[in-house]
């Protein structure tokens, strides 16, 4: 399916309507649906959440655009609701967390491979190994606190082994900042990749910040506090790769294009026909938003959106197991650290990050405690026969 970004009208805003019943449909089956259906749901929730946040901030800084921002934002708020409510109530918060980390691993790995800019591909690989370790820690939590197997959620697509140790991921804020792409020379896919991953990480941070205090177990409370802090670092990292010199409307245009692209990726890969129909519907909604913003871009900036956007969409994100790529990256880059915006060997990590880490870990490390001696096996730790 080739979509001409600027020539496709999509669904006009006035036809983007919802009812409460429409918003709250039957959720997916935790047991029977493919794990990648859940991955897409979580990702698209994050994409819509960030789009909403961006538009609220724009509205606070630009009076003239408030009306169109409010109209598009309302539609996107309801899109997010319908998507997020597809997660069924039998997912425990830790099981949903496993789903969030599967998104972070599989989508970041796919994007790292499709990113044409070598430095930015390195940024994605760097973050990937950290989220990969979070999966291991949360899987240990799920097993050791709830007595459940993370692979019931992962469906064997994603490994549960240590990555770059979470306890070593804590860095000084300056060492989380990266060089940004150049808005004039970067490929459109580079800009959309950045928005996709930043949005995913931002919702993960927010999710952990919301559910962390709902746990009664002290280790769970500490672990969510610790990993939420890394997700905050990741939002800092991925937010900083975006060119700060883009105008507000240029950014808005890119957000809408990125949403079109992400829904397109979902449509191309979805295996559940009922969910695929939702992706198709929202792809058309986003094309409608893009048309509106293209008009605003022309009117207010007197520029052609074709300066920013590609004629057709890039190849879709590969929603499939990235096991081999992750293992290869793990082997080659586990010891990478940062010094300012540079990636360096752990021996050359900045002093300020080492000091920062020493402080936050000085009263113990929840990520080390929960996973001490943890070895995932089917069924899992207590299932000793099957491991033999």
């Amino acid at each position: 399916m080739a979509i001409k970004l600027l020539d496709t009208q999509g669904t006009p805003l006035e036809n983007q309507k919802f009812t409460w019943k429409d918003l709250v449909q039957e959720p997916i089956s935790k047991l029977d649906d493919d794990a990648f259906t859940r991955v897409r749901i979580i990702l698209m929730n994050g994409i819509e959440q960030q789009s909403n946040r961006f538009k609220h901030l724009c509205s606070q800084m630009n009076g003239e655009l408030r009306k169109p921002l409010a109209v598009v934002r309302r539609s996107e708020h309801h899109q997010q609701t319908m998507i997020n409510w597809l997660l069924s109530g039998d997912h425990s918060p830790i099981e949903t967390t496993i789903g969030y980390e599967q998104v972070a691993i599989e989508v970041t790995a796919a994007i790292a491979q499709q990113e044409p800019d070598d430095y930015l591909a390195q940024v994605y690989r760097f973050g990937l190994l950290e989220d990969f370790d979070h999966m291991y820690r949360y899987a240990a939590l799920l097993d050791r606190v709830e007595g459940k197997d993370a692979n019931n959620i992962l469906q064997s697509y994603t490994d549960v082994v240590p990555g770059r140790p979470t306890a070593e991921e804590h860095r000084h804020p300056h060492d989380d900042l990266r060089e940004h792409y150049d808005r004039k020379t970067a490929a459109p896919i580079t800009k959309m990749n950045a928005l996709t991953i930043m949005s995913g990480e931002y919702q993960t941070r927010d999710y952990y910040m919301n559910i962390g205090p709902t746990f009664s177990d002290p280790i769970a409370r500490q672990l969510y506090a610790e990993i939420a802090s890394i997700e905050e670092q990741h939002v800092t990292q991925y937010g900083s790769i975006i060119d700060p010199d883009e105008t507000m409307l240029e950014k808005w245009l890119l957000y809408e294009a990125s949403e079109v692209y992400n829904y397109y990726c979902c449509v191309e890969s979805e295996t559940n026909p009922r969910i695929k129909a939702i992706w198709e519907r929202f792809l058309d909604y986003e094309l409608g938003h893009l048309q509106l913003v293209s008009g605003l871009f022309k009117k207010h900036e007197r520029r052609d959106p074709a300066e920013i956007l590609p004629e057709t969409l890039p190849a879709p994100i590969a929603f499939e197991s990235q096991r081999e790529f992750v293992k290869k990256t793990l082997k080659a880059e586990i010891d990478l650290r940062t010094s300012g915006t540079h990636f360096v060997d752990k021996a050359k990590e900045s002093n300020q990050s080492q000091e920062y880490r020493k402080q936050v870990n000085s009263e113990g490390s929840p990520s080390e405690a929960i996973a001490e001696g943890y070895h995932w096996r089917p069924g899992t730790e207590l299932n000793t026969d099957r491991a033999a």
Partner: protein
Amino acid sequence: MREAKMGANRTGIDVSPVYSKQMISDAEELSPPPSESVMMAAMEQQYIEAAHGVGSVPLPGTLKGVLKTAGKKVGGHNPEVLINKLGERLAYERSGVRLYQSFIRKCETLNGASQSPIPLDGLREICMEEAEHFQVLKECMESIGADPTAQTPDADVSGVAGSGLMKVITDPRTSLSQCLEAFLTIELTDQASWELLISLCDEMGLDEISERFQACLAQEETHVERVKAWYQESVISQV
């Protein structure tokens, strides 16, 4: 059809033999040697030692009525123990009414398609009795000067314990037998808790209250028997 059926469940390792083999082999290669977490236990113990309770029992300004007039025997006991437990039972019965109301709506919708329909009259009767028990507890709390609108610590904790059961019963996707299993847990706990409450009243010499509670317990015993029978029947009828 929501009773047990064969289908495309993807959660086990047998669904993806190739991926599962890789996953197991990667875990073998890249995980540390298996061991218990000593650090986890130490961290939990630190928190347990430092923790305060979930909250306090709202004691009445002055004890009155039955508790005051029960004489010396009450004076030798801690009335907050009783008030805590009365508050717990009251909250439990009130939630129980809501859960039965929800389940009755589900049965009204699904009974027609079920191999083993649940008698609606029986459910409504239990629901009504739970509501009566709530009233009995309210009156007893008021009679001793305790505030029946306050949430006591054990009421709070019992609500947390029941939150999973509530999720099961109110999920439109769950079957009648899945809900009945949740109700069996609820009723077994309820029965044992009324027994405890009666022992507590007897210990404190609150004879009148104990008598009223014994009538409630007799009804709770029938709830256990009926729910257990419906549950067994609903599962066996699927075989």
